């Protein structure tokens, strides 16, 4: 038993032309890890590799200290997964799908199923094909949670949802987090969701981890600097990460320990996660 719900060491994997290399990060029990990266950066590939749907070529993946290999049943019984598209057959009713799934989970809770369905206002007796995309996604969330998993992995769960449904899902996740044994891995590019509820943020780009830090520290470490055109120097430029030119001057990301605030003509503001993502990308 470790205090890390998920631990990944030196993971490599490959699918088609895309590869992940040297992935290292871990999720502390009882916390929410937000996973950001632009489209094609490897978020879904990494999640699939973690779940052993894509083969890893080296490295190890430990769930609560136990490796997946050889312990699939035990490990998967404790994981709930929500993918970005529905994995359940569309022409079935939720009750039928539930009957197909619950024999495999010892801890499946029928009452939780009906409670969640009610909470999301989903009719369990209507075929999935009659559900809207948002409802289908919510159903995916329901199915992932009924067996009381300790690790919940969500791959872009809120992408197709309207703001109200998004808030519903996030509410539910926060409710679940009241239990200290639960941990969540939440991959998304709607950074505003993570801005609030995430404890840690990991950013991935082109198959490599860019950073994996406590979110608050991340937002404290960086500043967004607004520099007037006239006072821009090469020295300042070299201290900035990512640079954008605007009508009035320049905007760039920099670290907090640079005395940039004192320079006249420069204003600094606190960055958002989106800023960090965008500016760290234009760095290339």
């Amino acid at each position, binding site marked *: 038993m470790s205090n890390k719900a998920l631990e990944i060491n030196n993971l490599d994997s490959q699918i088609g032309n895309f590869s992940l290399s040297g992935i290292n990060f871990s999720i502390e029990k009882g916390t929410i890890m937000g996973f950001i990266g632009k489209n094609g950066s490897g978020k879904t590939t990494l999640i699939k590799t973690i*779940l052993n749907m894509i083969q890893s070529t080296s490295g190890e993946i430990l769930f609560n200290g136990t490796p997946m290999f050889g312990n*699939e*049943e035990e490990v998967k019984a404790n994981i709930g997964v929500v993918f970005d598209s529905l*994995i359940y057959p569309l022409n079935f009713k939720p009750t039928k799908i539930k009957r*197909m799934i619950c024999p495999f989970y010892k801890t499946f809770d029928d009452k939780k199923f009906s409670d969640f369905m009610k909470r999301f206002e989903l009719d369990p007796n209507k075929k999935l094909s009659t559900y809207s995309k948002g409802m289908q996604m919510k159903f995916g969330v329901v199915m992932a949670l009924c067996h009381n998993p300790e690790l919940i992995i969500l791959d872009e769960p809120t992408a197709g949802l309207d703001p109200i449904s998004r808030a519903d899902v996030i509410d539910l996740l926060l409710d679940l987090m009241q239990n200290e044994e639960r941990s969540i891995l939440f991959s998304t590019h709607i950074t505003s969701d993570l801005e609030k509820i995430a404890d840690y943020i990991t950013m991935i780009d082109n198959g490599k981890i860019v950073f994996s830090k406590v979110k608050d520290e991340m937002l404290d470490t960086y500043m967004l600097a607004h520099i007037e055109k006239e006072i821009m120097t090469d020295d300042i430029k070299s201290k900035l990460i990512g640079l954008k030119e605007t009508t009035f001057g320049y905007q760039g990301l920099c670290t907090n320990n640079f005395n940039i605030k004192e320079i006249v003509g420069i204003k600094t503001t606190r960055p958002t996660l989106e800023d960090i993502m965008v500016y760290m990308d234009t760095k290339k």
Partner: protein
Amino acid sequence: MLNKLITYQRLLLNSTPPFSSTLPSFFNVILYCLAFSMIVFMNISLFFGNTASSNTFLPFTLPIISIWMINRTLHGDHRLFETVPVSRKYVVLNIFLLSLVMTFIMYVLIFTFGAALIGIMIGIVYLTESKGVNLLSDESSLQQVINTTKGDVLMLCILLIILFAGIAIVLIRNKKLRNTSFAGLTVIGYGLLFFLKLNMPISPITGKVEFLQSFSIMPQSNIILLSVAIATVLISITSVFIGYKFYVRK
């Protein structure tokens, strides 16, 4: 436990096309037509002389269809069967079982509704055979003269070999290796069967080589049948082990 098995089979079945897949792209449709024509060609050149029989067409074609569908499942997007907590060993065994179950289901469906399908097949044969075909869709008259049991057993062995070897190949993760293996299996299998056909005697009834009947009256048929049966058992067992190794290795 039986309930779990049945449920898992249902799960797998529902992840296979045509239940879950999206519409194939134009390119894929062309590919499927090409593959289908190839299968028809193989059937005709191997098994049909002056008669067309479902007893050769089905044991040859249905396993191929099963394998194709399972291939689509295993390498497609919908991976419900992998999210559910079961050991990899369980998955592999169920996939082999699934191939048998699917073939069986198709057999049942065809014999219940498939008269039209057979009619089409025979129609194609009729159109491609320039010399004219003696349309004997019911072989009972022939079977009174020649007992085709040996031929039927041979076809059963072929069916099993196609299924087991095919599934083992489906479990290969590397796409290129997998497709090469499929091609290899097809070439070797077809080659062997064709070689067998060339050495078969002419059926005294129709004047041409009819696969089932000719095999049954072939002098070496017993030896061949015995060797094929042994090969079937060996291939089945080996395929399960190899398939397991392909799927379960880290």
